[in-house]
Every structure is written in structure tokens, then in C-alpha cells.
């Protein structure tokens, strides 16, 4: 039995323009200790997917199971790192993490809670900034606080919702390495949502592409059989790296997954009258003297 399982899950939202489906027939199985990356377009429903596991929203049909039991509401056992950090701006780094620790380790003593909090602040290298407020931190530091908060909940599964998409390339690389190291040390079940295939290849055991919405669905998973620990420089030379990239991109860009877009345009060529020089001029008296004209209405079909 899989640790986390989606069974024919569909979810949509009803808005001003009526009901719009976001996810359709999602089937997914994640084993315990596995690192799974879901790669997809912006707006394809990735955040919806992760909110379903987190228990923040309920599916319209189908089931989301964890350990065979249906997920009922949010719970700290599924720690989540939100795309936009979601730190509480009126609390310091320490207080933000402590808030989570207080809930999860409510039966422990104050000293143990304190030590636990400090341990995770140290893990993400923020010990020097623990008394700062979120607005005094850079984007990368905020995201590290968010990761520390999620890890400090001692979750059974860690959900990462595009955690690095708002960061610059350098910070992104550093944090990818940090996430990689933490995962290798803790071996937690992780679900990473990203729009960056390379990030998925570097971190995950398995990459699953999510097709473009509306009514997005998951493609065939691609196994990342690259030995760990992975090194971001060496990985580029792995033959498997390019294959995986091609496979995932192939699915995402593949014509089969997206509706074909056909443009039909009517061209009216200018009424200039060029003469077709291939035709010999008919100079026989009595016959028409007008040259053959090539202006006419043209129809053109373009497939995107």
C-alpha cells in the first residue's frame, strides 16, 4: 500500500464564469521515504494538487489517502513550505518557528521546545538572524525560515510548493543543495512541486509531469536513476540527465497533451497586376490582351 495515494481525484473551482476544472483524474502513489517531483506549467493546478494533500481543500470527486486513510483537514504531520513563504510578519524568525514547535511538541518542556527550535534554525544556517523579523530578511532567508518551520513540525511528509521559484538563480542553487542535504540526512517523504525540470532531476527519485490546465492530469512518471549523492556540476554530463529532460519536456510540450490551436486567416493580395512571364503573350489579333493575373483570395491554415 502506498504511503500517499490519489484515486481518480478531480478538483475545480466555480467562479464568475461558472465551473472551471483544474485537475482531472489524478492518480498518484508515493512510497514512504520517496522524493517525488511534479513538474508542470504555471497555472496548471500544482498548488491545488499540493493543497489537496495538505488537507487545505477537499477534492470534488475521488480520494486522497495517507496510510490508507482519507485525509481530513490540515495537520502538522504534513508539513508544507508555501510558495510565498507565508511567514507571520509580526513574529521574529525564532517566534515563527516556535509557534509551530509549540503546537507539535506541546507535551514537552519549555527547554526542549526551545532547543528543538534552535536546532532547526541552525539547520538552515540562520542562527545569526533568529531575532530578526521577516521583512528584514532576503527572499532566500525567508524561504529557509519557511523550510525550517516545516521541518520543525517533524512531519511524516514534507510538501514543497514551488519553494524556490521566487528566488534568483544563485540563491536557488544554494537552497537546492540545502534541501538535498537535509533530505539525504532525514530521508523523509518529500513531494516537490516545481516548474524547473533540472531542479526535479537534481533532487527527486521520480519526476511526474503535470499537463497544462484546465483539467490537468499527470503523465507517466520518469524514474531518475542517477546515483546519490548527486553533484550539480557532474550531473550535467550524465547521459541519463538529458534523456530525462527530453522525456519530461516532451510530455509537457507534446502535441498530444495540449489542444491544437488552428488559426485560419484570409489574405487578400493587393490588386497589382503582375504579368506571368511564363505564359507567352497571346498576340493573335482578336484574342484577349490582358495578362494572366495572380491576385486572388487565399486561405491559410496554421497549426500551433
Amino acid at each position, binding site marked *: 500500500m502506498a504511503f500517499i495515494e490519489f484515486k481518480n481525484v478531480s478538483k475545480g473551482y466555480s467562479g464568475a464564469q461558472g465551473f472551471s476544472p483544474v485537475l482531472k483524474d489524478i492518480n498518484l502513489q508515493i512510497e514512504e521515504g520517496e522524493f517525488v517531483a511534479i513538474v508542470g506549467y504555471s497555472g496548471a493546478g500544482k498548488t491545488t494538487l499540493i493543497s489537496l494533500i495538505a488537507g487545505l481543500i477537499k477534492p470534488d470527486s475521488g480520494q486522497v489517502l495517507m496510510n490508507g486513510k482519507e485525509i481530513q483537514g490540515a495537520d502538522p504531520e504534513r508539513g508544507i513550505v508555501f510558495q510565498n513563504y507565508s511567514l*507571520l510578519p509580526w513574529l521574529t524568525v525564532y517566534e515563527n518557528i516556535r509557534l509551530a514547535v509549540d503546537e507539535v511538541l506541546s507535551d514537552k518542556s519549555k527547554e526542549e521546545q526551545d532547543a528543538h527550535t534552535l536546532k532547526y534554525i541552525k539547520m538552515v544556517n540562520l542562527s545569526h538572524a533568529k531575532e530578526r523579523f521577516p521583512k528584514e530578511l532576503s527572499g532566500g532567508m525567508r524561504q529557509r525560515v519557511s523550510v525550517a518551520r516545516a521541518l520543525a513540525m517533524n512531519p511524516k511528509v514534507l510538501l514543497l510548493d514551488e519553494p524556490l521559484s521566487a528566488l534568483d538563480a544563485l540563491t536557488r542553487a544554494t537552497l537546492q543543495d540545502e534541501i538535498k542535504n537535509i533530505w539525504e540526512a532525514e530521508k523523509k517523504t518529500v513531494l516537490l512541486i516545481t516548474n524547473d525540470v533540472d531542479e526535479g532531476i537534481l533532487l527527486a527519485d521520480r519526476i511526474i509531469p503535470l499537463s497544462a490546465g484546465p483539467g490537468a492530469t499527470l503523465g507517466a512518471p520518469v524514474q531518475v536513476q542517477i546515483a546519490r549523492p548527486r553533484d550539480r556540476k557532474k550531473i550535467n554530463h550524465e547521459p541519463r540527465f538529458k534523456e530525462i529532460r527530453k522525456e519530461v519536456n516532451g510530455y509537457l510540450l507534446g502535441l498530444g497533451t495540449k489542444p491544437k490551436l488552428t488559426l485560419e486567416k484570409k489574405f487578400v493580395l493587393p490588386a497589382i497586376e503582375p504579368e506571368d512571364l511564363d505564359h507567352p503573350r497571346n498576340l493573335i489579333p482578336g484574342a484577349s490582351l490582358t495578362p494572366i493575373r495572380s491576385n486572388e483570395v487565399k486561405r491559410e491554415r496554421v497549426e500551433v
Partner: protein
Amino acid sequence: MSEQFEKKVKDYLILPLFGVVCFMVLWCVICSVTDNLPNPIKMWHKSELFIYEPFAKRGEMDQGILRFTGLSISLVGQGYLVALIFGTPLGFFLGLSKLFTKSFDPIIQILRPVSPLAWYPLGLVLFELSPEPSYFASLFTISVCAMWPTVLNTAVGVRAIPQDYLNVAKVLKLSRSKTLFKVLIPATLPYMFTGFRLSLGIAWLVIVAVEMLKGQPGIGGFLWDAYNAGNYSLVILCILVIGLVGFTLDRLMSLVEGKFKTA
């Protein structure tokens, strides 16, 4: 540095002074046309006594200007406090519950524009049996009138709490009270303080009207008394003091408000 300093002197001293001078000139021009209105110098001589002995009490309606102001501020303070105590939770309910909003928003929108002059008699009737009907009626009037900005701003603030913060509370499974104190209230504070500031402004507007109706000792009562006695210098003095106090209160509140602006 000197250039910056010069600009500051110009912006904060010379230009405002120019405004004051213009105002004085206009005042003198009006005085030269009508006999009733005292000019600035005459006004100063007439009100000297109330300014030089600001805390003197010579009689019920004959007290130093700051003593009157103090009485008014104390009454405003009490009414304002009542307004906050009732207004803030009401705002929270409006912000949190759609059902509550749909039920009570129409009635609030109708009561909101009602003038303090209209509430005061109702207050007198309501507190008829109390030991001091006029005191309770004033309190009632101030609270009811001053409450609305707090109610509405708090409600807007609660509705504007980012879903992210609520998601954090959900994921951490925070208890209801912890969600309220750790998430909802801190997230709403900036809006609440905007409401508090507007409420204080209204409370200060209302006090003058209430005191004039009742003729209680206080800055508004004093103004009305001076008018009845034909002492227009004191009327102008009162207007100036009311303006200054209102301005100071607003500044103080916006300082506090600024402290609570997050992110």
C-alpha cells in the same frame, strides 16, 4: 546639509507661517466689515484671563481653558473607550461571518450616518432612571457615533487577512484562541488602528455638539455659554482650542498607528 536645512525651514516654518498670516489678514478684513466680530488683538485681550490661568475654577461656567478642555477630553476618553470595547468585537464578527454581515450590515449602514444631535435625546430617554441621565446620554451618544469607523475598518481588516496566514494556522492546527491572538488580531491591527484614529476624530466632533445641547462644563458648553453671553472672543478662542486638540489627538493616533504597520 545646509541646503536641506533651508528646505526644511521653508517647508515647515516659513510656508505654514505665511498661511497663518493670510488667515489673520482675512480675519481682520472681515472684522473691518462687521462690528460683531472681534479682531485678533481684541480677542486676545478678552480671553487673556482664560489662557493665563488655564486651570483656574472661578465658577461652573467660568474656568480656565485647559480645565474645560480637560473635562471634555475625559468625557471623550470614556465614550471612546466604550466605542472601542463594543466596536472591535462587532467588527471581528462582521469580518469573520458572512451570515452576520448579511444580517446586520444593512442596519449598521442605516444607523451610521445618524447625527449625534439625534442620538442624544434617545440617550436621555434610555438612561432616564440612572442617577445622571445627562452624563450617560453623553457617553451613549459619543460611543454610538464614534463606533462605526472602528467597526467597519476592523471588518475590512479581518476580510483582508491573506489566505496564507490562515493556511499557516490551519496546517499548525492552532486552537481557536491561538488563531485569534497569534494570527487574526496581529494581522488586523493596522486596519483596527486606522479605525481607532477615525473614531477618535469623530468622538471629538461629537463632544462639542453634546455639550452644547446640555450646557455641561467643557469646551463645547463654554463655547455655547460665551455665545449666549455675546462674548464672541471666547467663541473664537474655543474654536481654536477645539481645532488644536483635535489636531494633536489625530497626530498622536497616527504615530501609534504607524507603529503597528507590518511589512
